């Protein structure tokens, strides 16, 4: 465990360092994950590049179209306490406020959370349900990545070695849309969830469900969109929820661990998806 630490003052400088050191470099944002991974020997970078001095990455602001832009270095707590973020969606700020403890939320960042790609984390399902796009920069240019294409496996993203997440962009929320984030915590409040569910839903003027996005955490290698449940709800009346919820068990891929057996998690995914949908169809 021996590495050089670099602290670039600008995004351009950070990208130059990434290009120079290639896959021997590792970015550090808040550090809650990276510090532990390095200490446990799971990461052995030759160069650690700290992003904390790049102030432009901390900004949280409403976009011109009524959406929300969260800089990648904004801490969880900055999102939790942001009036702009709360005005955009209280479910979003509640999801960030539900992460671990205040100490972790003061340190962990939005971009670091997404790059870490732990499937049990809280923000990714909520950001996915809100149809987020991730802004990614490299010296080759900038690209907008749909959040569902970011995490590809446990702790693995589709990002290239020379890329940095700069922001999360959330589109405007249509009038009448409802959002929620629920997590099942059978042990302690700062534990990872046994299963978590983020849902957004909007009714059409005729009372049928116009649009819904349902995303589960902690029951697969990545956050999982419940596309079959979504498909069974679109265009249907509120009464379709009961049957649609049962489909969620087929869409997830939980494992046995300390937070429950795979069979238990399948059952709890059904229960908590039902509760989330009850909230957004109330």
């Amino acid at each position, binding site marked *: *465990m*021996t*590495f*050089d*630490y*670099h*602290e670039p003052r600008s995004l351009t400088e950070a990208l130059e360092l990434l290009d120079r050191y290639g896959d021997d470099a590792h970015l*550090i944002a808040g*550090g*809650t994950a990276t*510090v*532990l991974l*390095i200490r446990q020997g799971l990461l052995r970078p030759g160069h*650690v590049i*700290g992003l*904390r001095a790049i102030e432009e990455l901390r900004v949280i602001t409403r976009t011109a179209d009524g959406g929300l832009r969260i800089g990648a270095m904004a801490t969880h707590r900055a999102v939790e306490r942001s009036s702009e973020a709360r005005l955009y969606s209280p479910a979003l700020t509640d999801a960030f406020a539900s992460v*671990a*403890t*205040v*100490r*972790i939320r*003061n*340190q962990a960042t939005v971009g670091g959370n997404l790059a870490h790609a732990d499937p049990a984390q809280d923000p990714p399902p909520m950001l996915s349900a809100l149809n987020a796009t991730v802004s990614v920069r490299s010296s080759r240019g900038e690209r907008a990545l749909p959040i569902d294409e970011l995490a590809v496996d446990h702790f693995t993203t589709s990002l290239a070695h020379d890329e940095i997440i700069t922001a999360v962009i959330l589109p405007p929320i249509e009038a009448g849309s409802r959002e929620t984030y629920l997590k099942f915590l059978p042990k*302690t*409040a*700062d534990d990872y969830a046994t299963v978590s569910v983020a849902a957004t839903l909007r009714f059409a003027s005729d009372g049928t469900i116009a649009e819904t996005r349902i995303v589960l955490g902690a029951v697969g290698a990545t956050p999982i969109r419940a596309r079959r449940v979504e498909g069974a709800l679109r265009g249907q009346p509120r009464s379709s929820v009961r049957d649609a919820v049962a489909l969620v068990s087929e869409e997830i891929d939980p494992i046995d661990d300390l937070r429950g057996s795979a069979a238990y998690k399948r059952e709890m995914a059904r229960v908590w998806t039902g509760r989330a949908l009850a909230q957004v169809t109330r």
Partner: protein
Amino acid sequence: MSTHRLSFTLNGTKREVEVTADRLLIDVIREECGATGTKLGCAVGVCGACSVLVEGELLSACLVPAVFVDGRRITTVEGLAEGELTPLQDAFIREGGFQCGICTPGQLIAATALLSEQPRPDHDAIRTWMMGNLCRCTGYYGIERAIQKASGAGGQSPPNRL
């Protein structure tokens, strides 16, 4: 391994130390500065024993790279009392807010941060905020009573010391 010269204030005193890139804030506080009030518990950011304030923000010193605190103000348990104990420290004694004392520096720092942000926290606010500071002795009742009592006693140390 790169080395870094850091300049920061610890409990109001300016410090300069040279550290390697892999050092953590807890190492700097305890080993470089000799301020051993802050304890290392779980070392993975869960137990709260190493709670410190950096620019008034509550953090786990075991998870913060030392290079992150260059130019910052750090407050540990040693920095709370000025001549006499703060109302919070006094309340911890009077309400039985500790037994073995290992978690107490972290409890005091976490509660100081709470009272600075929410001067009169209710029962739920105290429990939600303090949830991540583990104590194996007290059963938490004394800790919660102490925080309630300190908030009723008219608040904490001046904000400029956090």
